[in-house]
């Protein structure tokens, strides 16, 4: 079981790195998909079953589909440019090193103790209890965010680019 998790963890990193070096958009998108699925498995392992499922449905399902649609609409197989020069590489590797070293230090220094885990804390019931009591307001309010997103994507994506012409039902 644990071995499997380690494998998925390593897989997610490998997919992420693959994203960095793939030349075709479609391949990058597929790597992201792989990465997300691996992460979803990790979620489920960490008792976040519901969220893991959401990850699969929302991310792997709809978000990735969106990406794929756009890629196919635009230029699916065209190769894309890099700007990997050796100077840039050293710069980014050092950034990675800096962030990583820092975080490593921080987490290493933090408390190691893990609370006694009771899987019933993480049941769907417990989750929905909190979501619809304490987090009711954010839950409601985030719908505004979705609304904004809808307006935005429609507004930007509208085919008709002659702003303000007589097309009346284009809200």
């Amino acid at each position, binding site marked *: 079981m644990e071995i499997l998790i380690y494998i998925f963890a390593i897989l997610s990193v490998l997919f992420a790195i693959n994203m960095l070096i793939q030349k075709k958009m479609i391949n990058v998108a597929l790597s992201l998909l792989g990465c997300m699925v691996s992460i979803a498995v990790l979620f489920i392992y960490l008792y976040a079953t519901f969220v893991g499922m959401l990850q699969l449905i929302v991310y792997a399902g709809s978000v990735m589909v969106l990406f794929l649609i756009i890629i196919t609409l635009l230029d699916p197989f065209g190769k894309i440019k890099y700007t990997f020069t050796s100077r840039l590489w050293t710069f980014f590797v050092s950034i990675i090193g800096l*962030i990583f070293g820092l975080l490593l230090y921080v987490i290493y220094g933090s408390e190691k103790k893990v609370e006694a885990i009771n899987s019933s804390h993480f049941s769907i019931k417990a989750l929905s209890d909190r979501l619809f009591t304490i987090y009711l307001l954010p839950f409601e309010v985030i719908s505004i965010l979705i609304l904004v997103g809808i307006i935005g994507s429609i507004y930007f994506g509208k085919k008709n680019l002659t702003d303000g012409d007589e097309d009346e039902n284009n809200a």
Partner: protein
Amino acid sequence: MKITPDFFIYLSMVLFSIGLIGVLVRRNLIVIFMFIELMLNAVNLSFIAYSYKLGQVDGQIYVFFVMVLAAVEVAVGLGLIMLIYRNKKSLDVDEINIMKN
């Protein structure tokens, strides 16, 4: 023997750093957006790991909100990319550089 939550936090760090670097090095707009998604995913992993460590379900709820954000970001962002592609016929972020200095 369960794996310690810290392992997942290290993992989230790795993913987050890769995400940031991706935004820095890739020139394709869509790919850049994918890396932003990757960063948000890393954040989610960190939330879940902490929620596991603390034995609380709250972290999972936060992830829920982050996912909504991610979806909205993709929706609007891709709309914007489409728009730019139509106006400019290019997805190269370095060519989008009219305003400077």
